[in-house]
């Protein structure tokens, strides 16, 4: 097991990519702080991890608050006495054509998708520095690189997250801390399904670049790039879109 004895925070652990990521870390032997604004769903993730013999604690956090992002990191260190990996997976992606984006819409998306992970990184770097190393994984989106209609605020947040990630990678490298950014393509998650519209088949009979990703496929890449085997993968962008866009 690649993460025996390691402590991992997964944000957005109650659903979709975050839940798949938390479950995979659980299988790999990590102790997990399953953080989400929806404590009930984070609790279900924790039950599944425990049911499989793993160790996890649920944690309620609204990442739009700097104070709460910081206390999430403190909670992990309180529970488990260290922090090896922070996986910033939580995100929201409400749609609106640019002329309909309200100030509230922009503020909320920037707060959850950029400010939250930013301050979580800040607290994690502090904790990891003190213990001599660690890994951060940010989950961005292809919309950081191409124009997807009705995603103006979201693109701004995810583009910002990609840029911030490079700076943290450079600043923290000398402390043994790595940061990588995973860039999912279209992924079949409850969050995406809740927006309506039809989601085509994700099975293996469909070529990767035509099908939607499964949350587990994103989770595999998040977990790998935070593992010791990827010890020299730092500041990297890992696209997981099956070759859908490739940019």
């Amino acid at each position, binding site marked *: 097991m690649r993460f025996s004895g390691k402590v991992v925070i997964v944000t957005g652990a109650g659903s979709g990519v975050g839940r798949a990521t938390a479950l995979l870390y659980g299988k790999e032997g990590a102790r997990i702080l399953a953080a989400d604004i929806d404590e009930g769903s984070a609790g279900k993730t924790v039950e599944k991890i425990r049911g499989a013999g793993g160790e996890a604690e649920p944690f309620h956090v609204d990442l739009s608050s700097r104070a709460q992002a910081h206390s999430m990191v403190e909670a992990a260190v309180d529970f488990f006495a260290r922090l090896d990996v922070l996986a910033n997976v939580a995100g929201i992606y409400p749609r609106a054509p640019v002329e309909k984006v309200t100030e509230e819409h922009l503020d909320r998306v920037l707060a959850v998708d950029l400010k939250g992970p930013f301050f979580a990184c800040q607290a994690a770097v502090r904790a990891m520095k003190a213990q001599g190393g660690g890994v951060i994984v940010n989950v961005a989106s292809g919309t950081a*690189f191409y124009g997807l209609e009705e995603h103006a605020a979201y693109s701004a947040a995810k583009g910002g997250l990609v840029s911030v990630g*490079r700076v943290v*990678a*450079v600043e923290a*490298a*000398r402390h043994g801390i*790595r940061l990588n950014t995973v860039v*999912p*393509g279209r992924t079949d998650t409850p969050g995406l399904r809740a927006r309506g519209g039809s989601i085509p088949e994700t099975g*293996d009979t469909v*070529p*990767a*670049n*035509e099908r939607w*990703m*499964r949350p587990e*496929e*994103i989770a*595999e*890449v998040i977990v*790998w790039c935070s593992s010791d*085997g*990827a*010890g*020299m*993968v*730092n*500041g*990297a*962008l*890992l*696209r*997981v*879109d*099956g*070759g859908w866009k*490739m940019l």
Partner: protein
Amino acid sequence: MSEGTRFDGEVAIVTGGASGIGRASASLFANEGARVVIADVDEGKARRVAESIATAGGEVVVERVDLSSLSDLEALVERTAERFGQIDILANVAAIFPSASFMKTSPTAWDRIIDIDLKAVFFLTQAVARKMIEQNRGAIVNVASGAAFRPVPGMSAYSAAKGGLVAMTRTIAHELARYHIRVNVVAPGHTASETVRAQMSQRSLDAAADGLMAGRWLEPEETAEAIVFLASSAASGMSGAVINVNGGDFMPH
């Protein structure tokens, strides 16, 4: 020895498997249960690597191949298909990287670098993909270089080859997706392979290390981990992608 089982029953061709990153990749694949074909022009070194893999319990064969010969490429694929009946993985690792300033690069030098570092990858991939299309599955990993993305003095022809390799990988990945064949790139940073160690003194290695983000060179095994990951089913969501393994020295998009 098989420590893992990620590649049980699979057949992997590794070019450049006699040295450096290719050698490390061949060992890792074998460690994880793959039957490995080391395809290299240096038969002596290839045999020594094969022996150490076999001693550790791995299944491995050596094919002497000069990648600058298209008939060698065809023969490699035919013999491998005959021997094993399948080809699941191709890792295009071999390359040459002689240094020459742009103004002193001759047409002969250009041709040799392009032949081995770009053309051979193209046509070996094509020949292997013919088998993979029949199987309706496969994974191909091409090894590029930071020179594809940023200036490396003395490496102008090499950077053309590696840049071309990254670009063609995307299109090949797109065309082969319908056959469930994934094609990806690993771009290594400064790696202390046998060839690099033979060319540089320990002093100049150390001096260069000071300028690197991690303060040290990569070991070939560290790059091989990314190659093996991309070839595995854990990377089923990745195609046409590039993984940079450089400790954070630079971060292309």
